[in-house]
């Protein structure tokens, strides 16, 4: 593999990885705050892609408003899912919550399949003009760069929200200790809803970006990226926001290179990486080892 080829694959890997990171952030934020593997998260991503599709084809909005509408829509969807399905189960065992999440996931997938049909829909081409960009000898296209740029921008925004705003502080407090946060006057319900809203909005953005990249959407499009994003979150250390970011980027890059080398492996590579990491360092790349107390 020549250096130019390497750099081109690296750009592809980074943009794929940044999408994984966007989805992984939602997983990790929800896990950090209520300890749930939110199986429905990957379907929120699918919902985002569908909202983007309808906004772009029926209202003919350009890229940025489409993205914002999709993010708003998925944020509302995320909050509704949390309020209706997860909130009644908050005090129950992890596994009941997990199964409810799986139920919501199946409901969204099959519901969209029933409403809009299972045939893939083609995304409008005119939403983003695709052109080649030459960075010295390296060829790339605007699409990959826009995806990378948008993802990075959203992640910086998230950092600002988490570390510079009041709701971010409330989120950090709630994820550290829910009961103590409540005693300090933090409205835990609102904070959890806000976490779902932000995480879902990021997933919705990822949905629109990927749908533009592959120009095709279907009700089950979320499953594969969902698994990989979750892998990324665990890889980086679940519950840690920088972990999701690092894990997503690394996973995207590894997947791009491995797929370029041996394409059959693309379905399993994420898991192979994950299992190696978990067996060597179970708390993830950035996670600290928590010693058990009796």
């Amino acid at each position, binding site marked *: 593999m020549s250096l130019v080829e390497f750099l081109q694959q690296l750009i592809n890997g980074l943009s794929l990885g940044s999408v994984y990171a966007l989805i992984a952030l939602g997983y990790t934020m929800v*896990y950090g705050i209520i*300890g749930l*593997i939110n199986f429905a998260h990957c379907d929120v991503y699918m919902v985002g892609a569908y909202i983007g599709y309808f906004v772009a084809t029926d209202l003919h909005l350009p890229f940025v408003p489409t993205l914002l509408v999709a993010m708003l829509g998925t944020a509302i969807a995320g909050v509704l899912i949390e309020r209706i*399905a997860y909130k*009644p*189960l908050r*005090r*129950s065992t*992890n*596994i*009941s919550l*997990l*199964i*409810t999440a*799986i*139920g*919501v*996931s*199946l*409901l969204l997938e*099959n*519901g969209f*399949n*029933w409403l809009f049909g299972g045939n893939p829909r083609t995304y409008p081409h005119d939403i983003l003009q695709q052109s080649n960009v030459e960075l010295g000898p390296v060829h790339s296209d605007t699409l990959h760069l826009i995806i990378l740029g948008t993802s990075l921008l959203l992640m910086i925004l998230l950092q600002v929200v988490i570390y510079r705003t009041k709701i971010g502080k409330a989120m950090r407090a709630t994820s550290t200790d829910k009961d103590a946060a409540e005693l300090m006057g933090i409205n835990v319900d609102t904070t959890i809803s806000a976490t779902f809203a932000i995480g879902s909005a990021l997933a919705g953005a990822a949905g629109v970006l990927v749908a533009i990249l592959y120009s095709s959407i279907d009700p089950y499009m979320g499953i594969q990226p969902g*698994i990989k994003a*979750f*892998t990324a979150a*665990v890889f980086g250390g*679940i519950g840690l926001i920088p972990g999701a970011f690092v894990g997503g980027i690394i996973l995207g890059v590894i997947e791009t290179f491995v797929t370029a080398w041996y394409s*059959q*492996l693309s*379905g*399993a590579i*994420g*898991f*192979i990486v*994950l*299992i190696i990491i*978990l*067996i060597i360092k*179970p708390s993830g790349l950035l996670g600290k080892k928590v010693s*058990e107390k*009796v």
Partner: protein
Amino acid sequence: MSVSLTASLKKLGIFLAASVAVFVVFTLLISTGVINAYYKRILMTICINIILALSTNLIINFTGQLTLGHSAFMAIGAYAAAAISLKTGLPFVLSLIFGGLVAGLFGFLIGLPTLRLKGDYLAITTMGFCQIIVVAIQNIPQLGGAQGLPGIPGKTTFAWVFFCMILTILVLHNVVSSKQGRAMISVREDEIAAEAMGVNTTRYKVMAFTLGAFFAGLAGGLYAFLMMFIEPTTFNYFKSIDLVIYVVLGGAGNFAGCIASTSILTFLPEALRAFGDLRLVIYPLLLIIIMILRVKNIRVMRLVKMIGRHKGGKEGDSHAAA
């Protein structure tokens, strides 16, 4: 001691008599055509799913290890049994046992490193193994690859699945009532305390995993010889998730509850067939509603349990074991 021995022998006798009665009734219904070929197939699928659910039950509810990859062992059992039968012409029963043993071996090999992990990490790793095994089978041309493995002789009969199911119930019920079973339960309750009391937790976790994998492999073999065609994607993690749902809805460590929930949930999609594609929407909706109702303490299984306690049958007995 002898009192409890006679009591348990009596219970065993009642259980065996009841199973024979159920078997005779179903066989009569099938032979007289009251249960047609379509429902017979569903019935056999239910029996296979019960074997799978009970083996998952041992790992999830009795040992407290959340696995999301149990269908991988079903896949291994199915492919091992089908392949050896096709290649060497081994008799049906031996192929089934071979499938179970290979799955058990894999369970041991996979369990040894992964069971160091806890909770959600274990869940996701087992799910990963499941996916890896599906992808691996897809890439083995000798096993038919992604196209699947056709031409398996249809040797699974109702008698065989029923017999295997009863065998599974007996063996697993015995295991959880034994010293080993109590050790597994102690791991579920408090791993550190169990270790402090001298229970080798890793050993019992791996034991539960291996045993569960063996029965899942057995069920996989039955499935292969029933369907006469197997393909890797049948066994992906969605199947594992189905198993977890059966087990959780059945109630913690409850054999009868597990059997009931598996039967209902296997039959439900068929019963909803009249709704067409909408059944795929109704099923998860029911799932969410049931989970929420459970937390509000309106349990279907509690009603079943109350009836069972009245009769003093298997229900209360397995409940006591848990």
